[in-house]
């Protein structure tokens, strides 16, 4: 299987440089792939997809009746991140999360950041994901965002930018781990000896993170994962993480507030729960505190939380930092709390609620990407250059109607990675979502992450709900360095 006819077509390619030679860190991989017999890669790829199907690693697509279960398409050519680059990203992400956590804590207490004029007050007041119910809360250790998935993209200038923050219920980490395990099974000879860093201990780290913020009353805290249920699109991940951590996966109906504590219904009666990794949005968490019509939550759980008798991970209220208008202030937020320059820059962002920006956006709809301030999953956005005139006009109306709800960014030329399409390699655009854990003791960035790939030719939308797939992400260890002991199969060929 050769890369001879592979074209980077002027895009930044993660595997090949501008003249078409493999990048230094990708050389061994390119060599190994090229040495495979004709058709072998395709066969392995099919084997990998069968394995995912057999393991039931599927996600549900909203809105279909039957056949709602699909595997998340998996591409067998990995994306490589050289160790120097990763080292910088790791620092940048830790910096960003530390600052965002301080920001959230501040917002729900004194709002110094507003008083000092860094973030406008009206912005917070108009933020739909700001939760007045959380004002004055003090989560253990002052940590609100225990688990974050931050979306990064590389543009054609070669720089990596933060595209968005996900501090509510970021999903996808199970695919990181499963992709790796399928990759190792189907491709042991390509994998071994390259010094790829481990992602398999994520669940252990996650468990330690949650334990570190459990209420002090529990010497051996009981931890559970709370899922909206089997029909949720990320259900596989919820059960995967519960299983990997060895804890119960509960639904709202399994829990009840009994004598001031959250308890689960077991075959032996009610049993106290101390910390909940909830994969349920704030809105649905407690019908007494948030949406009254929620059937998925636990009535009264917010009261227990306020009393410090249960820990919620992430804390309610963190969604405020996902707001894409607030996102544009993150470099200032980092400056304000940490007195540092942001290590990973933001994508330049136009805020439609500011007149000057709005006029620019309305004049350039055909060039920009327009996004709602408060959606995730790629819903409700418009990629200007790929959209019709009618859509441009539709978004013009929406922006004028609710300017606070929209932001716009230049259409980035996302970097590409060779992807197996039919029997040949073609470049496809990718992003990268690393996962960051923030426990009482430390911030941990998983060396890897979910590389999502837009499988449709030319497409820039990588979301699984919109025809995206994923790739294994190989963060490399420094050569012969101290990382060797942690690296995958670091000892030699298997």
């Amino acid at each position, binding site marked *: 299987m050769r890369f001879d006819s592979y074209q980077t077509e002027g895009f930044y390619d993660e595997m090949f440089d501008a003249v078409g030679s493999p990048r230094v860190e990708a050389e061994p991989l390119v060599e190994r792939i090229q040495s495979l017999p004709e058709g072998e890669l395709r066969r392995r790829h099919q084997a990998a997809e069968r394995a995912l199907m057999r393991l039931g690693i599927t996600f549900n697509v909203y809105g279909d009746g039957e056949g709602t279960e699909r595997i998340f398409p998996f591409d067998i050519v990995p994306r490589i991140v050289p160790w120097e680059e990763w080292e910088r990203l790791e620092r940048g992400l830790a910096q960003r999360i530390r600052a965002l956590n301080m920001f959230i804590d501040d917002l729900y207490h004194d709002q110094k950041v507003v008083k000092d004029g860094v973030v406008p007050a009206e912005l917070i007041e108009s933020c739909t994901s700001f939760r007045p119910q959380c004002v004055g809360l003090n989560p253990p250790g002052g940590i609100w965002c225990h688990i974050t998935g931050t979306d990064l993209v590389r543009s054609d200038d070669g720089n990596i930018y933060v595209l968005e923050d996900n501090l509510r219920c970021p999903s996808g980490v199970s695919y990181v781990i499963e992709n790796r395990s399928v990759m190792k099974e189907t491709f042991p000879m390509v994998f071994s000896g390259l010094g790829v860093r481990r992602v398999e201990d994520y669940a252990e780290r996650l468990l330690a993170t949650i334990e570190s913020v459990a209420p002090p009353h529990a010497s051996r805290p009981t931890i559970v994962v709370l899922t909206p249920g089997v029909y949720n699109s990320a259900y596989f991940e919820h059960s995967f993480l519960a299983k990997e951590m060895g804890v119960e996966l509960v*639904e709202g109906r399994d829990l009840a507030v009994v004598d001031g504590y959250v308890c689960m219904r077991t075959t032996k009666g009610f049993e106290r729960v101390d910390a909940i990794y909830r994969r349920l949005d704030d809105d649905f968490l407690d019908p007494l505190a948030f949406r009254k019509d929620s059937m998925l939550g636990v009535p009264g759980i917010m009261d227990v939380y306020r009393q410090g008798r249960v820990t919620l991970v992430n804390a309610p209220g963190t969604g405020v930092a996902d707001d894409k208008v607030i996102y544009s202030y993150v470099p200032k937020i980092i400056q304000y709390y940490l007195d540092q320059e942001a290590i990973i820059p933001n994508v330049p962002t136009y805020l439609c609620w500011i007149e000057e920006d709005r006029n620019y956006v309305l004049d350039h709809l055909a060039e920009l990407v327009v996004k709602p301030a408060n959606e995730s999953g790629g819903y409700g956005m418009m990629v200007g250059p790929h959209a019709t005139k009618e859509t441009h006009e539709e978004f013009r109306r929406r922006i004028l109607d609710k300017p606070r709800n929209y932001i716009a960014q230049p259409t980035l030329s996302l970097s590409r990675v060779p992807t197996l399409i039919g029997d040949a390699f073609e470049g496809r655009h990718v992003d990268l979502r690393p996962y960051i854990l923030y426990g009482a003791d430390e911030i941990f960035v998983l060396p890897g992450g979910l590389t999502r790939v837009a499988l449709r030719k030319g497409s820039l939308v990588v979301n699984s709900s919109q025809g995206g797939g994923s790739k294994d992400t190989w963060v490399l260890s420094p050569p012969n360095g101290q990382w060797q002991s942690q690296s995958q199969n670091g000892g030699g060929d298997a």
Partner: protein
Amino acid sequence: MLSRVAESIYWLNRYIERAENVARLVDVNLHLLLDLPEMFEGQWDALVHVSGDYEDFKERHGEANQSSVIEFLTFDRENPSSILSSVMAARENARSTRESITSETGEAINEVYLSITAPGAKDQAIQNPHEFFRGVRRASHLVEGANSETSSRNEGWHFARMGRSIERADKTTRILDIKYFLLLPDISHVGTAVDDIHWGAVLRSAGAFEMYRKAYGKVTANSIVRFLLLDAQFPRSVRHCLTRMDKSLHMVTGTPERSYSNSAERRLGQFLSELEYADERDIMRQGLHEYLDMLQTRINEVGDALHETFFALKPVTEAAAG
């Protein structure tokens, strides 16, 4: 363990065992078809009588013949006891408990689901039914084996075993009951070669032929009833199934054996004692079909009691927090 999870594990195992036993039921006829081709007409009716809703079948499928009955019992999604419905229900339960069952068990269940829903599975079942139903039985064994060899003997495992056992006990009574519906040309055929062939098919379908031979040798109605209902050692006999269930039940609650702390233990214990002291001659005198009916009712009662005891925890009354 969570009540919901315990219940799902229990049912997932019931469903897999159910799929296996429907395959076994069909097998009775497939054996007879080979052994008595000339007098086979009408025997497909018998299967529907013991294994499903007869009215429902008549309404939707009309005449009972090989293809309509196999369709009804295998791929009919409107028949809640069909193999397909059972496997789908098992998989749904497995999906909602995948963090509690072992990966190997989950994979085995997913594999049987994928094979039975694969394009062409239906054609294969019609063209080569022996092979197909053998596949279903083996899939069930694979799930059981995977679970047995990878799961700790924890609560989940005991609920799995209870599900398996209670379903199997029920289905063994139904396999035996087929004999009641199988038509003998006339009363004078009782005790003849045709009768023996019927009994042989029943034994084979229950996977009991070899073990029965070792224990009793000659095929006689009384011994077969004794073997399939009252034998202490044969793993598909009703008594053996209920004994296993009783052990698991006591392991879950911690109540000493031969005593009870809830309605499930009491009902099952009582029922089991009666079986332990039952005699096949009394059963035959009373009427086998009637006796089997009674067993099925009692088995259902045990199932209901289990539900009440473990799965239906009422909110905030038995508060035991702290």
